């Protein structure tokens, strides 16, 4: 008699756990969808990123050019050239970040 009671209690618990699982799954799925399309606080984060991405590329370009000039004695031509490439890279970074251009690094994710 007690055994029968216990079994039914177990079943009841299993059933409730199962329904909880199902509900959790549904919520998780909804959350994933929500998180992939949430634009909330990343807006300000993106704003903080924009300028530094742009400036850093120019600095790196100028530094590479300066290094080549020092090695090859072609001052100031390599620096001018690489600084311009740096500008291009900076604009590219910013446009990629803003999503205007597709990012080749992230192509796989888009294809999925």
């Amino acid at each position, binding site marked *: 008699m007690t055994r029968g009671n216990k079994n039914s209690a177990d079943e009841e618990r299993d059933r409730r756990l199962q329904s909880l699982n199902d509900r959790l799954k549904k919520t998780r799925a909804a959350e994933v969808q929500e998180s992939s399309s949430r634009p909330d606080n*990343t807006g300000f984060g993106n704003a*903080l990123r924009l300028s530094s991405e742009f400036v*850093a590329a120019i600095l*790196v370009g100028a530094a590479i050019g300066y290094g080549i000039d020092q090695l090859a004695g072609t001052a100031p031509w390599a620096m001018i050239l690489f600084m311009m490439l740096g500008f291009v*890279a*900076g604009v590219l*970074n910013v446009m990629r970040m803003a999503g205007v251009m597709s990012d080749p690094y*992230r192509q*796989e994710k888009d294809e999925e």
Partner: protein
Amino acid sequence: MASDPIHQFQLKKHIPLEIGGMDISFTNSSLFMVATVVCTSGFLIWATSGRGMVPTRAQSFAEILYEFVAGMLRDAAGSEGMKFFPMVFSLFLFILVANMFGMFPYFFTVTSHIIITVALSMLVFLTVLGVGFFKHGLGFLKLFVPSGVPIAIMPLVVAIEIISFLARPISHSVRLFANMLAGHITLKVFAGFVVSLSSFGVLGIAGSILPMLMTIGLTALEFLVAFLQAYVFTMLTCMYLNDALHPGGH
């Protein structure tokens, strides 16, 4: 109280040490780094020690932190990226707690020194390079060669891609450093206005309400920036790790 806005960033040696001509003194910066690490590990170990099916408040806070970073990493780098979870989680917590410590008056802001942020970003950069070359060999260089570009302009595109890649650790570190430095200086300058204005009698005290309001607003903004910088740093780490795991995307 020093009114010099830069004064707060000065290093003070608590325990002078020198080994082999290298100055490795225990400074106020080291002290706050140790405090950050002790606080984060201490809190997480304490919070998760119960391991309850039904979490306590502290445990569910630890779980929220875990879920937040894990979700960020999984979104950006896929489930393969979860191998790097310990590193990403430590980075996030270290930066977040160090930034938040900086918001206490008279506390030292570890992340307002570029050497710290460069060390953190170089850690990420070298990890990305190491993992990329270890996993893909020279195939990692495909990262610099976008598909579908005509051969004629390929050298130009590759040069631009390389510059854009090398710019990452710089923008990664400078962003965090500059935001923390500039924020704290601005805060200090506006707070200084309150003090110097109020020394001009009644009119000055009335006028000092304006910079006071500004300081209150800036403090709130700084809390937001402190969190967002940690968030942005971690998110970019995840994206860079994704490049190391899947270069070229094909």
